[in-house]
């Protein structure tokens, strides 16, 4: 537990010291909001502000995942610190769990950034749901994205082309999350993939919470997210074993 906290605290420092990361959590949300605003500004429906907010937020979350699970890890690989983390008495997944959570906590600030822009710069009214709903949703986002991000970290840890693939995945993920078009319009096999993405459920959930009368406890999206979190949790355990095997048996960790 203490390790998790130390890992978390130092990750805050490291991330914030990187201008790329400050860009991801502050500038990027602003740019995405502006771009989507202009693309959608002819759209004639009442809650365009909320629509913008949901889409931009999910795009930002994905950017932060890309950042935390991949470019950060690649960096660790390049600095050669994976070995000394791996060979320490602490379980690898706790160490990297701390790092991922730290990045996500920072990344969730981008929600605030896009909210402020939409509400005050573009003057589109967003009616926030009550505090409890917000906290619940925040918590759900945090755990579901932590597990996804950690899962992806493992997946790409020993992959040389990690950065390449994750960049390539950006727009497909947006599409599959239902940002540009309704998921029902996609072919069935793509729909199945989209069920496996927390972003799909988050888009649904975020749309729902702006309906004041909606009780999120009855939302299928909440349960979808919980189930996915559990699934990715199992995935992490499996991946951890695979990774240990790859390092110890196949000798794929290039310590030297």
């Amino acid at each position, binding site marked *: 537990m203490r*390790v998790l906290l130390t890992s978390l605290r130092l990750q805050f420092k490291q991330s914030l010291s990187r201008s790329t990361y400050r860009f991801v959590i502050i500038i990027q949300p602003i740019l995405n909001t502006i771009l989507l605003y202009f693309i959608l500004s002819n759209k004639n429906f009442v809650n365009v502000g909320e629509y913008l907010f949901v889409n931009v937020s999910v795009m930002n979350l994905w950017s932060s995942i890309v950042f935390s699970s991949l470019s950060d890890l690649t960096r660790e690989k390049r600095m050669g610190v994976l070995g000394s983390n791996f*060979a320490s*008495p602490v379980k690898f997944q706790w160490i990297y769990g701390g790092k991922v959570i730290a990045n996500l906590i920072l990344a969730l600030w981008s929600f605030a950034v896009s909210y402020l822009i939409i509400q005050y710069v573009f003057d589109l009214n967003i009616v926030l749901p009550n505090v409890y709903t917000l906290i619940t949703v925040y918590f759900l986002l945090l755990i579901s994205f932590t597990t996804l991000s950690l899962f992806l970290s493992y997946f790409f840890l020993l992959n040389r082309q990690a950065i390449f693939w994750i960049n390539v995945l950006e727009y497909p993920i947006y599409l599959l999350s239902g940002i540009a078009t309704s998921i029902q319009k996609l072919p069935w096999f793509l729909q199945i993939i989209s069920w496996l993405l927390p972003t799909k459920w988050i888009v649904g959930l975020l749309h729902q919470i702006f309906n004041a009368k909606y009780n999120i406890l009855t939302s299928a999206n909440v349960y979808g997210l919980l189930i996915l979190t559990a699934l990715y949790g199992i995935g992490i355990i499996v991946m951890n074993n695979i990774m240990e095997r790859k390092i110890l048996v196949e000798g794929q960790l290039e*310590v030297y």
Partner: protein
Amino acid sequence: MNEYMINLDKVSRTYKEKNGTDFVALNQISLNVKKGTIHGLIGPNGAGKSTTMKILSTLLLPSSGTVTMKGIELQSNLNAVRQDINFIYGGERDLYWRLTARENLEYFSALYSLKGVEQKEKIKELLELVQLTDVANKKVETYSKGMKQRLQIARGLLNNPRILLLDEPTIGLDRQSAEEFKNIIRHLAANGTTILFTSHYLEEVEDLSDEITIISRGEIVASGTAQELRSNIGKELYVHAVVENVVNRKQAITLFSRYFGDELSVEKYVERTGNVIEMKVSLSNKKLDDVKLSSFVQNSKIREWKIGSPSLDEIYRYYTTV
């Protein structure tokens, strides 16, 4: 058995190569390191030194054989030994460049469950030891190579390791820092830390090691104290000579038989460029007549000539040249 802190018993390690074939990096290595001693591991590039170090650092499992550390069988108990070992690999790796030296040490010490006052004290002590106290709050990316290397050393000592593994730890250190590093190592060993290290600087190895192991192409070719290694080759006779007009083994033997007679039997013959040959010869009659010998040298157009104890450098070349 328990006097050994590190014990490798017929350890092999193969790597899968890109084309699918197996490459044997370590072949049935057996090696023992006594508690509180310094053991040097030398050998040419690709000999398998780093592979050995990785296995002992719990970063790699052997393909076969048994590894025991402080009496615990390693393969199935990785976590049981991790608290008590640490490693320092040469170069600038193993550090977070965007954190300060102090933060790096905080981070890694947390991985070894150091906390509170104990943690602070330890970090302070180590920063002083590697002389980084003044720059402890600067980011590592602003450090020179040598400073990063010294910080690595501090990192490797955070958990007071009972076994310390060093893979080319002095690479990139200037003479003075390397000297200070050697003192640290001696001091640690005197206090009971067991140390296994690799290096390409033979002078340093001879200077530091209680025992030395020479490894070549994944196999141990010699092991023991420097004295033992020396007498292994040199106890009978070790000849290092620069000879004119010697082109092959047969000629060399004929030449030397003229002096040594039938008593000579060549155990190893190595030819190098520039007419330098090295031979390990056995003699049934070990008594050498200095007067006869020098007249032989003069008559045989042998320009340089040495009989007796080889230097570590010669021992090394003797064993590692094919």
